[in-house]
């Protein structure tokens, strides 16, 4: 730099400067800490405060979480374990994770049959396989998309069970629609093709699929009839013995558990005996602290009294004859008198408490001669150092006398001395309590060694007990499974045996119905209830209609029962599971994932509709979005569970879960539509014109140009909606579905776990957090990946 002259304006550098390393404080971790944690006094202050707050939070949470109990059969047992490790307190000692250990499967699966757990688990694992072509399109082979398309049907079949051809037939509806669309698209316009495809699919699902399924059921059922009948008969003979064997095993296990509980309780008693001296001291401390509180209250009352007397300058007396002054003086007088009474009673209560409920130090020491004092003789010295009972309670007698003599005309000086004396007694009492606390600590220290062995033994016993209970649960589940198989087998056997009769009766019933119908006047033939008849209908007509309706009912129900029997007999597939058995996190996942997967395409269509220039399409979309968004989700859920029944044909049984999925999907799609509309609006019109000028059609330009860019902009919003939807699935609790939160209520209703809150909510919260956090992370990853183009 020396060749740079400040005065010259023209300058030529002759040699280039070498590169230098930056100062040590400007690199690496030091730089980071300086810049981010301690860059200025405000920043330093915030850093220190933040660290302190984090420390506080962790020091509360970590001991609770990691000092928790995993092996226990009930909340009471949890508390026993915590107490034996001095972690009792008021529920702050440690978590009772045993409830999670005991019930986590239920929180995950609800009342799904345990022997079928593999099905939802498999469906869940396959979900990620199906997701791969969508989420990581560049890393997996393209053919996998076919699996993704088939996945919804496969998953539904795995979860709800039934014959394998049901999902196949349902999927074929879509295939048919697609074929019709392609075919009609070549010979007619797009509107005709779309309508044709819709009609084809509806006809397939509505009119063809059911007879086809019934036919298959009947064919397979007939071929299996004899073998099934003999198998069922054989099973009915075997099953009672199996049930009895399992029940006997269960009874044995119960006995083992009872013995283990006794052993555990014996250990608990032994530990209590070791710690008995602690309880004696604890009692003593409790009584003395009680007295101390009373004295404190008395002291406060004296202060209040002296305040009143000071204000009135002696006994309260009215300043004039006015009613107001008289009333004030009277109020003050009565307040002061109450205080005088309180002081007396508080003091005498404290005195009697000390006299009656506490022991002489010598007496206390006496109970310790054999116990802790042998290990730690200094304890006896501590007792000796303590004052006698009389030294604490006698001064109080004097105080009580003086308090009894207090009147409204008491001088401030006397009151002050009364207060001072009370405080002297309190100080003595406090010292006394402090000595007891010291002794308590020493006792606990002497007990610690003695307790080590029983504590370890106690934990072992709890662990044994837990594994015994697990075994008992397994046996109980097996028993339940076998005994329900027994009753199912019996029931099905009876149904099968009557199948031929019912089938044979069908034509007869049909004839009867037709005959009864012929007697009904033609005007009334479409009626489905007698009360639909006009007032003036004749008695014969009424009777005829009622006969016809009765005959038809019998025919239809027989038909349905035959159909059902064949359905069961001809089923090739998985055990059917009722939606009511599905609960817990599985339910949240099903509703959440179905809602997410269905609401995205629907939301895109709604967003495009809202941008459309076609007047009615546009308005329909706007109204739909605004109405759905403007009403709380919980209202829609109630609509799904209660009101929807009114709009459905009577007798149709539309699965509640399906209804909820539909409602959640509609609700979420309205939000998605608005998010995507924002993305569409953010695109410059040049993109639409660019696509148009190349001759791309509407759907082509949407698919290739507009939506990829609009979706990219909307990713954070879309994922945000999805996370919201997933968490909102817990609202189904209010319409009687057992989501994780609903199950936590059910678990708390069990007397074993009555009072467990935090542990369940922490677990459920953690499950949801894992899923929502993963979704958020994936969206960040996707945003980064798509950030290649900069505007």
């Amino acid at each position, binding site marked *: 730099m020396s060749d740079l002259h400040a005065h010259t304006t023209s300058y030529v550098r002759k040699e280039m400067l070498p590169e230098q390393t930056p100062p040590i404080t400007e690199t690496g971790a030091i730089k980071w800490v300086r810049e981010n944690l301690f860059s200025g006094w405000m920043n330093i202050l915030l850093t220190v405060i933040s660290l302190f707050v984090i420390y506080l939070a962790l020091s509360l949470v970590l001991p609770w979480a990691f000092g928790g109990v995993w092996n226990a059969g009930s909340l009471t047992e949890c508390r026993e374990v915590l107490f034996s490790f001095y972690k009792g307190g008021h529920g702050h000692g440690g978590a009772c994770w045993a409830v999670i250990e005991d019930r986590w499967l239920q929180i995950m699966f609800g009342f799904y049959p345990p022997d079928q757990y593999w099905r939802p688990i498999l469906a869940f694992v396959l979900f990620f396989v199906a997701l791969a072509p969508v989420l990581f399109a560049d890393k997996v082979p393209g053919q996998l998309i076919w699996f993704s398309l088939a996945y919804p049907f496969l998953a539904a079949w795995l979860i709800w069970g039934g014959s394998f051809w049901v999902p196949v037939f349902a999927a074929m509806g879509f295939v048919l629609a697609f074929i019709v669309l392609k075919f009609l698209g070549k010979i007619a316009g797009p509107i005709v093709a779309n309508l044709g495809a819709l009609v084809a699919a509806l006809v397939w699902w509505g009119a063809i699929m059911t007879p086809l399924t019934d036919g298959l059921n009947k064919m397979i059922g007939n071929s299996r009839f004899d073998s099934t009948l003999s198998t069922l008969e054989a099973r009915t003979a075997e099953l009672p013995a199996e049930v009895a064997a399992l029940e006997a095993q269960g009874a044995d296990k119960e006995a083992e558990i009872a013995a283990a509980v006794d052993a555990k309780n014996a250990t608990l008693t032994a530990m209590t005996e070791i710690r008995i001296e602690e309880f004696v001291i604890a009692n003593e401390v409790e009584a003395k602290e009680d007295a101390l509180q009373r004295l404190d209250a008395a002291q406060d009352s004296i202060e209040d009294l002296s305040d009143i007397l000071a204000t009135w300058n002696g006994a309260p007396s009215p300043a004039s004859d006015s009613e107001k002054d008289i009333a004030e003086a009277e109020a003050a007088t009565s307040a002061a008198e109450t205080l005088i009474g309180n002081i007396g009673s508080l003091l005498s209560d404290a005195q009697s408490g000390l006299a009656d409920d506490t022991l002489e130090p010598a007496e206390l020491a006496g109970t310790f001669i054999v116990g802790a004092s042998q290990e730690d003789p200094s304890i006896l010295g501590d007792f000796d150092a303590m004052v006698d009972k009389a030294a604490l309670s006698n001064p109080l007698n004097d105080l009580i006398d003086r308090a009894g003599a207090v009147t409204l005309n008491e001088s401030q000086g006397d009151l002050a001395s009364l207060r001072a004396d009370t405080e002297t007694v309190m100080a003595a009492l406090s010292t006394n309590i402090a000595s007891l606390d010291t002794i308590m600590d020493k006792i606990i220290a002497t007990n610690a060694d003695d307790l080590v062995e029983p504590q370890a033994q106690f934990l072992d016993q709890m662990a044994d007990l837990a594994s015994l209970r697990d075994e008992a649960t397994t046996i109980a589940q097996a028993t339940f499974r076998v005994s329900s198989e027994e009753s199912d087998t019996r029931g099905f056997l009876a149904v099968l045996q009557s199948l031929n009769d019912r089938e044979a009766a069908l034509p007869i019933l049909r004839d009867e119905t037709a005959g009864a119908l012929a007697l009904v006047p033609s005007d009334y033939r479409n009626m489905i209830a007698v009360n639909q008849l006009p007032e003036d209908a004749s008695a014969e007509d009424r009777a005829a209609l009622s006969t016809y309706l009765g005959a038809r009912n019998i025919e239809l129900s027989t038909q349905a029962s035959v159909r059902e029997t064949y359905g069961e007999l001809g089923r090739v597939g998985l055990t059917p599971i009722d939606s009511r058995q599905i609960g817990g996190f599985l339910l949240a996942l099903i509703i959440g994932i179905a809602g997410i997967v269905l609401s995205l395409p629907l939301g895109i269509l709604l967003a495009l509709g809202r941008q459309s220039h076609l007047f009615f399409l546009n308005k329909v979309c706007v109204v739909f979005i605004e109405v759905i968004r403007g009403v709380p989700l919980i209202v829609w859920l109630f609509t799904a569970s209660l009101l929807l029944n009114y709009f459905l044909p009577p007798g149709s049984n539309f699965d509640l879960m399906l209804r909820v999925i539909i409602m959640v999907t509609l609700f979420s799609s309205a939000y998605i539509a608005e998010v995507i509309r924002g993305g569409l609006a953010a695109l410059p019109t040049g993109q639409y014109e*660019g696509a*148009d000028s190349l001759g791309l059609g509407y759907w082509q330009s949407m698919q290739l140009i507009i939506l990829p860019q609009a979706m990219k902009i909307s990713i954070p919003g879309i994922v945000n909606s999805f996370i919201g939807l997933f968490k909102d699935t817990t609202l189904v609790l209010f319409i009687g579905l057992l989501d994780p939160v609903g199950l936590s209520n059910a678990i708390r209703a069990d007397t074993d776990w009555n009072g467990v809150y935090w542990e369940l909510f922490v677990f459920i919260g953690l499950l949801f957090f894992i899923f929502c956090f993963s979704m958020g992370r994936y969206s960040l990853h996707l945003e980064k990946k798509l950030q290649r*183009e900069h505007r």
Partner: protein
Amino acid sequence: MSDTAIDREINRDAMKVSDEVAIQITDMNKWYGTFHVLRDINLTVNRGERIVVCGPSGSGKSTLIRCINRLEEHQAGTIMVDGTELSSDLKNIDKIRSEVGMCFQHFNLFPHLTILENLTLAPIWVRKTPKKEAEETAMHYLEKVKIPEQADKYPGQLSGGQQQRVAIARSLCMKPRIMLFDEPTSALDPEMIKEVLDTMIELAEEGMTMICVTHEMGFARQVANRVIFMDAGQIVEQNEPEEFFNNPQSERTQLFLSQILGH
């Protein structure tokens, strides 16, 4: 503004104009709401003709050429492109749009696709060309606009001039019979204007029918068959470039030319 767009001699003899009519606009009118943007436009463009449209801003130049591929709708009169009349029939519109290439002031490339994907998109989806063939064509045109090495980049990574050349190549990939240019150089700085004009001149030398809305008077002088001057939604004057620039007839044209060439 320079007098010439390109330093080399341009072979105007090679740019033949045939008798075949490419675009015929008859009594065309357009309104934005109640505002009359285009008034009684009559224009015939023969195949191989190169027309430059100029005029002050707001005179309706862009609207006129945007009507030709129906990015804007006209309300009266007829527009025939390659013998097909522009109507609201979607199939006709898509057919005409795939025959008529267009370059925009702001390029309107698709930022989420690579250059190659930008070029092959329309041939693959509209013309149903096999992917491999489309890519070969795309590389051919990228070489023609002298940026084959950028094929795998994204539009955001290219300079403005390069982007406009990609946009031209994108239109050419559809093998259009007519090219429309809507102020292709207005958003570029001088160095880049030259590379884009080079490309356009080469295109003209190959006999492409072109309608350019531009203020590049050097380009008009060297390349155009006809220069059309528009003002207030009407065609005020049209003439051969020599006559147009040296001997403008209307006062409005004289004023415009004096302003644009005066400095």
